[in-house]
């Protein structure tokens, strides 16, 4: 009986969606030729699609409700999530896991083509961008929708300093990061006292302002046509051919990823990291515990910006050409999707999120058209069904061996 009712509801829902999507999906007009195409098959696909998705969601909810609540705190774990947790919590397995990953990353460019190495390098850049944004959004709970602005600052720092002063990649790498961090502080100082949703919008506005300035201030940034012939990263004056250069950039990115993971991991387990998480949980309680709200947020914000700046320099050096079109709001949204999909606050999650979201559309060409559609859907679905992300963060548990009880006061 219940089943029949659900089928009826699924049918009604799919009819509603056929109606809803009718003008956009079924009709296509050509206003110049003055012709109308009726794509009735799309209405049929829509009906079938909605019907099955509805039943799938209902089935998922049903299973979730009937699950025995014995597992810790009713936390439902994905198989992949619990597998990764198990591996990471066991030191031997963790070392094997790290070893395998390291081996794969070293041999990757030697097995696959230059093109694929290039794609992987891009994915690794998103890993670092994701980890940077993860500090801001995942740990400190500050929704930054203008993250791409700091990325742009890094990229333009390298391009312009190189263009005008001939500075090399290695000189600019720290400058780009520090300049982006400075921008982070300058922006963060006035806006970080704002409530979460206002902060999100202000950062979005800031990101767009930076992009519009780059687009319109031609004298400074060469406008929409961008800057080309940016040198690739060098190595003690050695000159690489294109293939070697791709290889070199790839290994540089691997090193950057490792360094970033190392640092973010340490930060997360420190006094500062705890303060960020506490700030995310409850600002007022946090202040009442003696945490300087503004300073703590500012540090998170500028550290995130720092990484975006670093990757920006890498990006300019890798692609050898930049223009403002690379730094739109959608770029920020992609990085946010990576963090949300992987799991806010979870390092492993963000790495997986970046690899999935950047590599999947690259290899499944058929999907690449639907890339942005999927990013949007991911943000919505993750919030509704799995706000903790694919691989949720494991909070560190402290083992305490009792020594002589220390005096408290």
């Amino acid at each position, binding site marked *: 009986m219940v089943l029949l009712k659900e089928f009826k509801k699924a049918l009604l829902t799919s009819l509603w969606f056929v109606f809803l999507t009718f003008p956009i999906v079924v009709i296509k007009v050509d206003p110049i030729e003055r012709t109308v195409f009726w794509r009735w098959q799309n209405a049929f696909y829509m009906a079938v699609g909605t019907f099955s998705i509805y039943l799938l969601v209902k089935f998922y909810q049903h299973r979730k409700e009937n699950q025995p609540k014995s597992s810790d705190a009713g936390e439902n774990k994905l198989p992949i999530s619990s597998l990764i947790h198990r591996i990471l919590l066991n030191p031997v397995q963790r070392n094997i896991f790290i070893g395998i990953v390291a081996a794969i990353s070293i041999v990757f460019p030697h097995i696959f083509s230059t093109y694929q190495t290039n794609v992987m390098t891009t994915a690794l850049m998103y890993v670092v961008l994701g980890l940077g944004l993860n500090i801001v959004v995942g740990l400190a709970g500050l929704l930054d929708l203008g993250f791409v602005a700091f990325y742009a600052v890094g990229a333009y720092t390298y391009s312009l300093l190189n263009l005008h002063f001939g500075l090399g990649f290695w000189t600019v790498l720290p400058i780009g990061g520090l300049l982006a961090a400075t921008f982070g502080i300058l922006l963060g100082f006035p806006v970080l006292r704002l409530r979460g949703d206002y902060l999100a919008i202000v950062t979005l506005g800031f990101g767009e302002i930076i992009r519009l300035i780059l687009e319109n201030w031609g004298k400074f940034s060469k406008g929409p046509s961008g800057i080309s012939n940016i040198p690739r990263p060098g190595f003690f004056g050695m000159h690489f051919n294109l293939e070697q250069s791709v290889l070199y950039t790839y290994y540089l990115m691997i090193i950057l990823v490792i360094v970033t993971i190392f640092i973010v991991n340490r*930060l997360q387990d*420190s*006094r500062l990291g*705890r303060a960020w998480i506490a700030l995310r949980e*409850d600002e007022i309680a946090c*202040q009442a*515990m003696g*945490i300087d709200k503004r300073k703590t947020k500012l540090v998170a914000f500028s550290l995130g910006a720092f990484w975006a700046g670093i990757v920006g320099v890498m990006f300019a050096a890798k692609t050898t050409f930049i223009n403002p079109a690379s730094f739109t709001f959608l770029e920020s949204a992609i990085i946010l999707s990576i963090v949300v999909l992987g799991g806010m606050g979870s390092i492993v999650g963000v790495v997986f999120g970046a690899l999935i979201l950047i590599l999947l559309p690259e290899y499944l060409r058929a999907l690449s058209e639907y890339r942005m559609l999927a990013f949007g859907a991911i943000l919505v679905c993750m919030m509704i069904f799995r706000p903790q992300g694919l691989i949720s963060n494991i909070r560190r548990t*402290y083992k305490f061996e009792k020594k002589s009880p220390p005096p*408290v006061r």
Partner: protein
Amino acid sequence: MKQPILNVTNLTMDFGGIRALDSVDLDVNSGEIVALIGPNGAGKTTFFNCITGIYQPTGGDILLSLPNKSKKVSLKGLKPNKVTERGLARTFQNIRLFPKMTVLENVMIGRHCRTKAFIFGAIFRTAATRREEESILETSYAILEKVGLAEHANEFADNLSYGAQRRLEIARALATEPLLLLLDEPAAGMNPQETLDLDHLIKQISQEGQAILLIEHDMQLVMSLSDRIFVMDYGKKIAQGTPAEIRANPAVIKAYLGEEVDA
């Protein structure tokens, strides 16, 4: 010899045209338990919010005496985190723990203002940072043992029972090494057994020399714990004295009976 720790004089707070606090005086001496009572809406929590920096009071002064120093510092106009740094730590009426952090971490957050490791120390994990982390851990664990939550150390805070969450709030506040501990209705919503445990806990903390100022509606608890009691009504202080004096004070009886019998 009892020394004064907190001296609040003429504290006044206006919200728009409404005077929520009207020249309230209050003082707490070292080692004392002082209770602040009064009917609902009397302004007790506003008083707490004013002295802890969450609200900026319109008038009056809040002076804290630091140990080993004859000088007193004013807490007026300080941000909440600075107030806590100076030595006033509080709990909240409606529990405000960090729900997705472990019990131990909640207490470790309390150590924040007594420690200093920052970006550099965190990344390079210097010897000083390691020592500091160890001491944070030790102190926090010891406090958890004191409030009887040690066996829950690695559970998430929101998995604790209600009474345990209230005790964790106290533990977290204690971790900041306060000169004065402020408890905002610590027994609210507790069952009789939990209230009794709380009574023991507060007495135990007090015996270790901790000065405590508490807001509480449970009169039995207030009478059992307090050395002195201040009574507020409609934003004004209407009485102060020992539990026995307060019990017999006609103004207090009127304030309570006029509203409702609370005990």
